[in-house]
């Protein structure tokens, strides 16, 4: 479903737009004049139809509520070309990350691996479990065979601090 399908006669929600602005921590957004330098260099444009200038325009107009529940915000590859090239120092990347954070707050549908990463970090401190790998010469290698140090489980104080951090909006 493209962004345009979500939009029919939507009403602007300036409060939600304010929430996004807060999450930008002083970065510009309102002064975007749609030059489209961001979209013309966007890595996700061809394959996934992401148009960063469109996202900024929609948020500026207050059409925020539809975006956290759409698939389009999850297509950004975080290459940061848009941030680099914007002449107005606006940043579609940061707006998209703010919308992703809003999607999590709203418990919207999202790619599941992000939340799996959070629970894995809470449990082990790392994003994933170290794996055994098979080399191109068909040998099996893992942390023990490489004599790498054992990974200790994280302290409770870390776990409770991270959980508190996750509550922050």
């Amino acid at each position: 479903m493209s962004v345009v399908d979500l939009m029919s006669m939507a009403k602007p929600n300036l409060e939600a737009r304010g929430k996004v602005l807060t999450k930008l921590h002083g970065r510009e957004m309102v002064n975007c004049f749609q030059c489209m330098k961001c979209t013309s260099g966007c890595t996700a444009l061809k394959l996934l139809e992401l148009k960063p200038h469109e996202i900024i325009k929609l948020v500026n107009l207050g059409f925020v509520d539809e975006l956290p529940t759409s698939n389009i915000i999850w297509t950004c590859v975080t290459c940061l070309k848009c941030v680099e090239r914007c002449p107005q120092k606006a940043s579609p990347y940061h707006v998209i990350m703010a919308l992703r954070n809003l999607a999590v707050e709203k418990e919207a549908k999202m790619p599941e691996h992000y939340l799996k990463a959070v629970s894995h970090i809470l449990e082990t401190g790392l994003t994933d479990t170290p794996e055994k790998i098979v080399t191109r010469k068909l040998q099996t290698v893992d942390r023990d065979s490489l004599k790498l140090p054992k990974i200790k489980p994280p302290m409770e104080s870390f776990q409770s601090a991270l959980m508190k951090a996750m509550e922050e909006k």
Partner: protein
Amino acid sequence: MGVDVVDLRESVCCGAPIKSVNDFAANYLGARVIALAGLTGLENLLVPCNRCHFTISESRNIMKSDPRISGKIKDLLREEGLQYSEIKIWHTIDFLHDCIGIEQIKKAVTKPLTGIKVATHVGCQIIRYSDLERVDNAENPRKLDELICALGAEIVDYEEKLDCCGYSLILSHPDSALSLTGSKLKAVQKLPVDSLVVSCPGCQTMFDSKQKDAETTVGAKFSTPVIYYTQLLGLALNIDGNRLGLNMNQSPVDQLSAKIASNQNISRHPSGT
């Protein structure tokens, strides 16, 4: 080269994978890495991964610029008895290029990589965005190239040099991610190069470990050796391939090692005998 490296054993995730979930929590994790590094009393933190370097740099930036957030993060760090303090943050590339220096590296080379041609992929998150104090120039990064020339090898420039490897999408949109990887590999394959050199484990995962998967996605055959810069550096310092982890690269690096060895033999015996 006279550098002592201390492993930050207690360090956990920098927060990069959870920026999309809760940026504050990611900033807290990045600040925590900086705080742990502060415990060692050392002045320099070396971060060998582009994504980690970006995330930790954004954490440091927000700790400097936003007193409200910085205060909250310091409170959380205090719960573990940690204190936040400034530290110099390096990536492998600027550490070797700016801190150690090209001249030192040239002097350390014992087996120059004569006749070897390489394409570079420095990645995205260490060159962008410029306002954040990055490792190299955003539109014309040259440090990795110069580091490779210091080893006696040659660089081949190409149009697609700044294209993204697609790693961020590998779990949520694998076909698109591998499409990006495959397109870049197609471009590199056309060049007269012996290897693609990267400076990020994420990029290495795509171009090296997932080279075969990328073949399937874009319908091509690839045989490009892909190695992390310090592996190439190690070869020029005559360090054994297994110590450099070359046995674990999934791309065909043996053809690169073989060429390096035979070129060195030829240059030692110019008459060919």
